[in-house]
C-alpha cells in the first residue's frame, strides 16, 4: 500500500513539474484590432464583449469597433498583419512569457513582454491610426 502511494506521489509530482515547466511556445493566440470612436456605433460588439467592460470603465471613448481578428501562433517569427499598416510579431518566448513587437509602416512602435492567461487579454491602446483614429490591440491566449 505504501509503495503504491509513494509511486503515485512521485508520478503526480513529476507530472506537475512537467506541466508547470511547460511554456507558451506553439500555443494559439488571437489578436484583435479595434478602433475607438466618439460617435455612436451600431456595429456588432459580441466579438469584443470580453474587453468592453474595461475599455468603457477606463477610457472616455463612446464606442469601440472591431476592425480585424487574426490568429497568432506563439512562436518566434510569427506575425499577424492587422491592416491599417499595423503588424504584430512574436520576437521572443521565454518560458511562460512571450515578447511581441508592434510596428506600423515598418517602423517599430513598441515591444512588450507579456504573461498571458487563457481568455484574459492584454490590451494595447493609444496607437495612432489613419485620419487621427485611435487604435487598440487586444492579445489573448486561447
Amino acid at each position: 500500500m505504501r509503495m503504491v502511494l509513494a509511486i503515485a506521489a512521485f508520478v503526480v509530482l513529476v507530472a506537475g513539474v512537467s506541466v508547470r515547466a511547460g511554456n507558451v511556445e506553439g500555443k494559439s493566440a488571437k489578436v484583435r484590432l479595434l478602433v475607438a470612436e466618439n460617435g455612436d456605433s451600431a456595429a456588432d460588439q459580441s466579438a469584443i464583449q470580453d474587453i468592453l467592460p474595461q475599455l468603457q470603465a477606463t477610457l472616455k471613448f463612446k464606442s469601440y469597433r472591431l476592425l480585424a481578428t487574426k490568429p497568432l501562433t506563439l512562436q518566434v517569427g510569427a506575425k499577424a498583419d492587422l491592416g491599417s499598416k499595423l503588424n504584430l510579431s512574436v520576437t521572443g518566448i521565454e518560458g511562460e512569457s512571450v515578447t511581441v513587437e508592434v510596428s506600423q509602416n515598418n517602423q517599430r512602435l513598441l515591444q512588450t513582454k507579456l504573461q498571458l492567461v487563457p481568455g484574459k487579454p492584454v490590451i494595447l491602446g493609444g496607437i495612432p491610426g489613419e485620419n487621427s483614429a485611435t487604435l487598440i490591440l487586444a492579445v489573448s491566449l486561447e
Partner: protein
Amino acid sequence: MAKLTWNQVRDELSRRSASPTPVPADQFWAKFRSQAAREPRTEAVVVPWLWFAPSQAWAAAAAVAVLAGLLWIAGPGGGASTRGAGGGQRLLVSAVEEIHVFVTYSSVLILQDEKNGSTLVWLGNLGKKDKGDS
C-alpha cells in the same frame, strides 16, 4: 443484637462454613484446562511499533505529496504563471512584464482589471511631437 466475643465469632464461623472437601489434583487440573481452553484469553498483544509507525508515516507523507501535486497542477493559471504587473502576487490576470517604446510618447498607463482578468496598456500621444524615453 447480642454482643459476641471474638472466640464466639470464630466458633460460629467455623461451624457455619465448613471447609470444602479438597478436590483431587487431577480433577482440579482437568477442570482448569477445560475452562482455560473454553474461555477467551486476554493475553497482551505485541504491537509491532517499529514497523507500524514508519509505515503510517510513509502513507501519510505519500498522501500529502499526492494531494500537493494535484493542487499544484490544478492551481491558478495551470501552466501559466499569473504574476501581476506589480510583481509577486499570483492572480488570474494576464500581465505586462516589460514594455519598450521606440517612438515618442507622453505617458504609459498600465491598468489591471482583476475582475475581468485583462490588462490595459495605454500609450499617450504615441508617435507625436512630445518626447519620451523607453
